[in-house]
């Protein structure tokens, strides 16, 4: 890759990051997520005993996963659909920027934006654990944070694919959410595949292949394997998005 193209990619990412940073809804989502995650602390009086750290972690991780998904979809839809609708994308694309460069820059910016939630989210979780007398388990937090970040990069891939397939903000958001829910329900698909009749099993198996599973991003899973799986899923969804976007009329 030559220096000119590297520079162009860097500027495209910077532009997308600037747009994401100035998106008020994104900042509200991050703030709300941190407030809700911190809310786990209020429930201390219920006295979960030995299960307290487990409860804290589950509550905070669930919050980050939920708000992270919302952040990925909302920001992704605004970055891509918004850019297409207001014509800024057209101004960039007539300057020799390739469509896949523009789209991939948006994905990178979206992943960085998700880091703005994951990083403080897990730092906050560490503080909560320390405050409750369970110490600050740096390695475990980094591991869990990385798994969460990888999961959200896949959601970001869903969001971008949905944006180039659907015409309109709402439809894109619904499609991205549907893909995310399907990935969340992957164990159910697997169960259905196991218990289906031989004829129906083909259909369930195909569906299982089409929809990635978030099971591998749950705490306790290996980081390397999860990273490989996330990159593979993101690559497939982004490649599909790039192919569709290359044929889309602006």
């Amino acid at each position, binding site marked *: 890759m030559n220096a*000119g193209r590297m520079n162009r990619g860097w500027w495209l990412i910077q532009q997308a990051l*600037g*747009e994401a940073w*100035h998106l008020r809804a994104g900042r509200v989502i991050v703030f709300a997520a941190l407030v809700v995650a911190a809310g786990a602390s209020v429930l201390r009086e219920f006295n979960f005993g030995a299960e307290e750290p487990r409860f804290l972690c589950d509550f905070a991780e669930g919050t980050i996963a939920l708000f992270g998904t919302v952040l990925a979809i909302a920001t992704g839809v605004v970055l891509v659909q918004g850019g297409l609708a207001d014509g800024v994308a*057209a101004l960039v*694309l*007539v300057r*020799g920027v390739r469509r896949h460069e523009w789209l991939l820059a948006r994905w990178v910016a979206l992943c960085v934006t998700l880091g703005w939630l994951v990083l403080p989210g897990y730092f906050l979780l560490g503080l909560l654990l320390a405050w409750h007398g369970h110490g600050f388990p740096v390695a475990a937090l980094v591991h869990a944070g990385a798994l969460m970040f990888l999961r959200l990069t896949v959601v970001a891939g869903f969001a971008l694919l949905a944006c180039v397939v659907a015409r309109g903000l709402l439809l894109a958001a619904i499609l991205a959410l549907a893909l995310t829910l399907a990935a969340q329900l992957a164990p159910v698909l697997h169960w259905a595949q196991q218990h289906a009749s031989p004829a129906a099993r083909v259909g369930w198996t195909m569906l299982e292949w089409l929809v990635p599973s978030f099971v591998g991003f749950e705490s306790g899973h290996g980081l390397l394997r999860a990273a490989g799986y996330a990159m593979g899923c993101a690559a497939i969804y982004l490649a599909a998005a790039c192919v569709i976007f290359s044929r889309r*009329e*602006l």
Partner: protein
Amino acid sequence: MNPAPSLAIRAESLVKNYRTDWRSHPWRALDGVSLAVPRGTVCGLIGSNGSGKTTTLKVLAGLVRADSGRCEIDGGSVAAAQAAGKVGFLSETAGWSAHLSGREFLRGLALVSGLAREPAEEAVVTALRRVGLDGAADRRLGGYSKGMRQKLGLAQAVLGDPAVVLLDEPAAGLDPRASAQLGGVIERLRARGRTVLLTSHFLPQAAEWCDRIVLLERGRVLFAGDRAAVAAAGGLDRLYLERTLG
């Protein structure tokens, strides 16, 4: 060395069908449009709403793919012209990032065009000066008036001094003074040998600014000619009314 082609824009038999959804019948936006715009001239695309003016510009800008036909910019493909920075484009629906200043917005576009920092800064200053926006260069775009945004659109279209400038309704939303300034910008582009293809609904302006006129209706070229041909047809108003109503 090959001599520079005499035609800056050439389009042959462009056909484009749009489909609003998969059930609907395709709607033909371009039905065999052919264009030939000599280098260093200003050509106006006029026609009713939905006649195919914007689609023609978008095909030439590489934003829309024609179903059939071919087009060339400066003797090469549209993609090659884009990569070489030979095309400037002002979209009718261009929106702007409200958090940026005019200078920052143009700088971003110059940098993604592949210019290095210093040449990019120079190109931005030149473009802002050309459209008379240098006084408001550091204001946030959120505070720009419609006319100022239109000027900024023009500034980004001429950024980097492209050989071919495609302007979709450049005078929309401009007051008479800004409109006269726009005429000056177009005149200077022509004087420097640049080629301008613009769309307009305002016939007196088109008649004043353009060396050539192409009249489109329902995706077809009804008339194409220079000033003399327009005059021979009784003027642009008459030509437009006779050809589109008759």
